[in-house]
């Protein structure tokens, strides 16, 4: 095959496909051209937690990812402290979801808690883009209002390269990529099983059961270490550079404006950590210490927390959950009674 001819044909075919696909995709997904930079959140907000907060008037609201879900027992903590605690774990979340949750749910409610507790680890607090792409976007969408300019700017637009900005605005195949992929996934997921008598619900349940299975701890540890690599990217250790482009100052501002004390809980991890994290941690601790209405509880090197509490490098087992909740209760008591 003549390579020059193939190249010319490819350029022409690409141009033609780009024009045709742009027109079709713009029509199908109702996109403006050029598209607006940043995410398109829907108007629907997940209100369950807001309703619960308004109904129970908790003194403490806890936010975090699966580590919170597996690490803190809400009922036990409430009983040991003698105050109402509302726990809102969002598995697979990061600071973008936590910020939105604070802004729209915790402080969107008529009642504001006295304490907001955020469980974190590694460099999560200063990596705003962590867990915001692909399927994680839907998680953000749950807690976002239609317009979220700060999150759009910090989490999305600031993270884009000039090429991504161009593609986002001018290439509809890229702009609508999340929706196109969802449509494609749905077509692949539901069409054939439906022929075999398994409808949408049946397929969702079947696939959901696979993705909710008990996992192998060794494999899970490897996967978690793999995921942690994002948080260990060399640039993420540069605290001074990261802090200004993160959502952390905005989370603190929100708490201060709404009269809550913000308690950050650094959880313990059993696994290798890079030496650079030490310097980063020191700077983060100094920064938090300077902020009004902010308390840091650091369990990273706490001897009370044992490896036997853990099911993998991050998550507690039921015994560990009970023990860690007791330790938290003990430390919260000193804060509450101050």
């Amino acid at each position: 095959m003549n390579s020059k001819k193939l190249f010319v044909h490819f350029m022409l075919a690409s141009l033609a496909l780009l024009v045709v696909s742009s027109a079709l995709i713009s029509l199908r997904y109702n996109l403006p051209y050029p598209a607006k930079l940043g995410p398109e959140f829907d108007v629907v907000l997940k209100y369950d937690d807001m309703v619960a907060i308004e109904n129970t008037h908790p003194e403490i609201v806890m936010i975090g990812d699966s580590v919170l879900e597996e690490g803190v027992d809400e009922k036990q903590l409430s009983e040991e402290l003698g105050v109402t605690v509302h726990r809102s774990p969002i598995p697979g979340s990061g600071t973008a979801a936590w910020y939105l949750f604070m802004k729209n749910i915790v402080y969107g409610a008529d009642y504001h808690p006295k304490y907001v507790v955020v469980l974190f680890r590694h460099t999560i607090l200063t990596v705003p883009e962590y867990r915001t792409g692909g399927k994680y976007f839907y998680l953000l969408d749950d807690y976002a209002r239609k317009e979220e300019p700060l999150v759009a700017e910090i989490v999305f637009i600031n993270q884009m390269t000039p090429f991504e900005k161009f593609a986002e605005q001018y290439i509809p195949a890229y702009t609508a990529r999340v929706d196109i992929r969802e449509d494609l996934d749905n077509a692949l997921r539901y069409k054939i099983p439906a022929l075999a008598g398994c409808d949408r619900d049946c397929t969702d349940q079947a696939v959901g059961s696979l993705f909710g299975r008990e996992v192998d701890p060794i494999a899970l540890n490897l996967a978690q270490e793999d995921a942690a690599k994002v948080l260990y990217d060399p640039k993420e250790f540069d605290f001074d550079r990261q802090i200004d482009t993160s959502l952390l100052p905005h989370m603190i501002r929100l708490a201060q404006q709404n009269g809550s004390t913000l308690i950050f809980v650094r959880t313990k991890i059993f696994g290798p950590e890079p030496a650079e994290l030490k310097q980063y941690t020191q700077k983060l601790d100094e920064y938090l210490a300077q902020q009004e209405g902010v308390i840091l509880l650091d369990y990273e090197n706490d001897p009370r927390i044992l490896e036997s509490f853990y099911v993998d490098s991050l998550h507690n087992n039921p015994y560990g959950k009970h023990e860690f909740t007791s330790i938290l209760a003990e430390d919260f008591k000193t804060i509450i009674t101050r």
Partner: protein
Amino acid sequence: MNFIGVEFLYFFLIVFVLYWVFPNRRWQNVLLFAASLVFYGWLAAWHALVLLASIAVDYFLALAMPRWKTRSSLLMWLGIILNIGLIASVKYYLNFDDALAEWSLQTGFGQGFLLSTILLPLGVSFFTLKKIAYLVDVNRSAMPPVKDFIAFGAYVSFFPQVFSGPIDRPQAFLKQLEEPRTWAMDHIYNAWQLIVMGLFKKIVIANTVKVIVDQIFLMREPSKIFLIVGGLGFTLQILADFSSYTDLSRGIAFLLGLKTSENFNKPYISQTPNDFWNRWHMSFSFWLRDYIFFPVRRALMRASWLPAVFSQIVPPLITMFISGVWHGTGNTFIVWGLYYGVLIVTYQLLGVKVGQTPTKRFFAWLVMFMLIAFGWVIFRAPSTAWLWNALRLSPFASGPEEWFASLTLTVMIAFYASLLFIKYILDEYFPKITWLHALYYAAALILTFVFMNSSTPDFIYFQF
């Protein structure tokens, strides 16, 4: 620095412009060597120093060989031991030795535990094989030692290859570095197909199928039906992932006016294990053939007191065992290597050859494809205990839910496999219809845009 990242794009644009603005052979080689060291030392400069030091040692050892002919083999073995020592120390020892890891963590050696244990091994397995090939070839006078240190350094550290190959032979690559290179549009004509396919296979196929595969291999006790689906998924994922890296590597090399080795030749149409290894990771399997298999077989054949069958059985077993060890530190890799050793020996002893009739060819392919997929299950399993458990104790399927989940996932895997199958059909049956191929590449490009997002998981072969 990852090929699929804006950092690399900027890096490459700078190298590309500087490379062609001054089309002087010496300058281009200096630039290639310097750029490769920058690329390799991007995360930690001392990685580049290790690479530079190891290049210097082999360079001087090879130079000394013709001058000190009686000690030539000794020098070669010294070089081989140092190279294997380098792999062993950074890849195996640091991974396993907790005390050293702790010391590394405490002292900040190598800018941290993660960098020293996980990131440094990247590429070591590949560039040491290049250097061993060079030492052996110089020792057996297959080529003279390279006098130009810069050219030798550029060959060993060549940035498009340094992390995951292909493992180019010194003779072919160094010859190109000795010749003048001038800009021609042919460089683009040769490169673009590889770059488009590399991005397409990685972003659209490998990254998508990875989600399914990871989930299955995360399960504590998968039933056999999930193991089959996971195995098929990984069979597709590893081909798409690894061949995409090779495509990108070759495409980038073409843009620099250099032709590098192919690594894959439709490996999944193989009919025998030998056939498979002649098509899969070719630069590595040819390396194994020339520097392990043949020397071992020659040595065994010379030992006339040994039964002849030994020279048939032992070389494939040793070669594939070494292949397994090279691939990783877990038992699964060793079992996977030995599995292929046993397969090759069995096929040889049974006298199984490529089928002569279409029916025989089809069945030979079917059997081999299943064996390949099972091999990938061993390779991908988190541990041998996990695999043993899944094979022995788990049920085939625990209920209708598992059947439906498997069906759904198989449909998804089949869809992504069909994207590669279409390419195969075009290459095999419509090789001359240019517009059809152009349309395929254009569609691949658009799909790549659709599947592209900010996160790009590492290439699987970065770990080796």
